[in-house]
């Protein structure tokens, strides 16, 4: 049964890729207004977890349950999850040739609002969101992610989040590939999006982003499990000491 107070909750999620278990069981509960961070070394399964929760067909969830706003989402397709209010900002967003950012954005928002719903406010909304993220207006007519730099792609992921305004956003390594100025702009965008009723799950290797977007809870994921949970200070400790000590602690604790 879902926790009535939780915005986003998943229990004992197991993820398989090509019949190989990548995540052996992860649980997390995010309340409205909370920012959580999952940190972990490369290959810890954190990207697989977020992709699986979004409904990527290559990441099979073989066990567990997940609820968004009290609704079970695992039987939903990716588009249904999106329309239910879940969002994933990708680590490596793909290019869609011939489809402009503006048309894509309009189609996505239309899908969220329902076919035939009024879209007369779109242009204004879209322009304002671009401006807030210091995205040059010319990007509106560029093809989605085609020829974009890494940083531009990340900004456009945050732009999409701002326009679609999901209840729950998972951000996968959004800070990678950003220089310091871009990092600030993107962080400001994330903070502007965040409010008392939505939730954020930051998936990241480094704590860099967390200097700008302050998490309430930090979780460390290793070998597909959350092995340690703490406050923002945990992220700082990881930054200083790396992941080895957590891994050592974990191995000791489990007697492996």
């Amino acid at each position, binding site marked *: 049964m879902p926790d009535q107070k939780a915005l986003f909750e998943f229990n004992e999620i197991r993820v398989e890729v090509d019949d190989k278990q990548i995540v052996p069981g992860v649980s997390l509960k995010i309340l409205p207004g909370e920012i959580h961070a999952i940190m972990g070394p490369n290959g810890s399964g954190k990207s697989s977890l977020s992709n699986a929760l*979004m*409904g*990527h*067909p*290559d990441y099979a969830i073989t066990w567990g349950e997940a609820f968004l706003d009290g609704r079970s989402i695992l039987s939903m*397709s*990716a*588009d249904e*999850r*999106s*329309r239910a209010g879940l*969002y*994933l900002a*990708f680590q490596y*967003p*793909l290019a*869609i*040739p*011939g*489809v*402009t950012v*503006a*048309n*894509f954005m*309009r*189609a*996505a928002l239309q*899908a*969220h609002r329902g076919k035939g719903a009024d879209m007369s406010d779109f*242009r204004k909304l879209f322009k304002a969101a671009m401006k807030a993220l210091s995205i040059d207006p010319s990007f509106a007519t560029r*093809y989605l992610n085609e020829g974009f730099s890494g940083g531009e792609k990340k900004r456009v992921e945050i732009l*999409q989040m701002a326009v*679609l305004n999901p209840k729950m956003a998972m951000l996968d390594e959004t800070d990678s590939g950003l220089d310091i100025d871009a990092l600030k702009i993107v962080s400001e965008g994330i903070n502007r999006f965040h409010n008392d009723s939505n939730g954020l799950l930051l998936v990241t290797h480094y704590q860099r982003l967390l200097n700008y977007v302050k998490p309430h809870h930090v979780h460390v994921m290793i070998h597909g499990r959350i092995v340690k949970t703490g406050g923002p200070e945990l992220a700082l400790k990881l930054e200083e000491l790396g992941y080895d000590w957590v891994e050592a602690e974990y191995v000791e604790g489990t007697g492996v």
Partner: protein
Amino acid sequence: MSDEIRRRNEDLSSLDKDYATRYGFQDPVNYFHKGARGINHEVVEMISRMKKEPAWMTERRHEALDIFSSRPMPKWGNTEMLSKIDFDNIYYFMKPIEHQQTSWDDVPEYIKKTFDRLGIPEAERKFLGGVSAQYESEVVYHSMREDLKKQGIIFLDMDSGLREHPDLVRKYFGTVIPTTDNKFAALNTAVWSGGSFIYVPPGIDVKVPLQAYFRINAENMGQFERTLIIADKGSRVHYIEGCTAPVYSTDSLHTAVVEVIALEDSYMRYTTIQNWSRNIFNLVTKRASAYDNATVEWVDGNLGSRLTMKYPCIQLMGPGAKGEILSVAFAGKDQHQDAGAKVIHAAPNTSSRIRSKSVSKDNGRASYRGLAKVHKNAVNTKLSVECDALLIGEEARSDTYPTMEVDNDQVKVEHEARVSKVAEEQLFYLTSRGLTEDDARLLIVNGFMEPFTKELPLEYAVELNRLIELEMEGSIG
């Protein structure tokens, strides 16, 4: 796709979704003249006599019939489908009304209704300089803006062209595509009827597009329009044509010949959107000659039909001539789009660019068949060929048959061919933003077509997007 197009698409979204209801309707017609099935010298004689043609044309037709009869069917392309054409079961000439009309009010109600449903002449009022509507063998309605007439621009149906400008027609008819060129060009020459005749005087810039619309209504009908366009020195013109036919259980034949002559320093663009029902054999010969510093552009969209074989060609005859061929083909279930392009560089400092895009879906098959030839004297030439195929589903098929014959070494050649599938990853990216899988796939296909769509006048771009949407409906991954 611009916002404007998007908006127009939304406006159009209330239209019937199914080809059969939108274009597939059939009119019950009492034809003014409906000949017998099959082809022979009597049929040819009758056509020529009814049109009161000069003797040279009658003779040309008879010669052409002999050439058609003596030539074997092509041994390349989709020979299996070609062998299904039953030439004896086709009506070669049908005349729906006695006289062509220049006032829309005088067009018979049933034909008017047809073209109203197809958006003609609404489009004429909006953005065209002239329009011609052909129903079966003959042009039933024709009009042109007065100001264009005053500039000396000639835009007529081909029959009237021959009647009113016999010398011009005689000078150019069959010069770009001789009767002996291929079996189907010979057939067209024997029984041609209708089509467009355009002459743009030296230095005249026709600022609005001229349009023709071709409609086949009867079952087992053969439509053989003949189009001849002459852009005189330094002139500019854009001609557009659209085609549809209803859905019948047995096949009809569309065999057109299009000749374009672009004289020195002229510019000619020819845009086609063909959207045939799936029982049409569409076998068309289109060729242009571009003289010194002239530019010719074929913009060619092929949807529907059972089999399309069409390879728009540009012969770069004079120094500095340029040619561009941009084509798209959409091959749905049981269809074969064998389309391509040909460029012949026959003079120095010429350049050409071919861009071909195809989408195959279900068991549809799209082939690119192309020829790029550079003659020995054609030094300092540039040519580029880019083929891009998108496959939807496991059974879809695409093939490429590019031929290059380069006879000198002062040529810059670029060639690229790509085949891609609608990638799962792309679909996931779009669906993760709330689009259904069908909408996501359509967006990817529309994006793929974008380089073509953006070359079209607005109305055509809107229409093409609608047609692609129809084709995509109910498609499976």
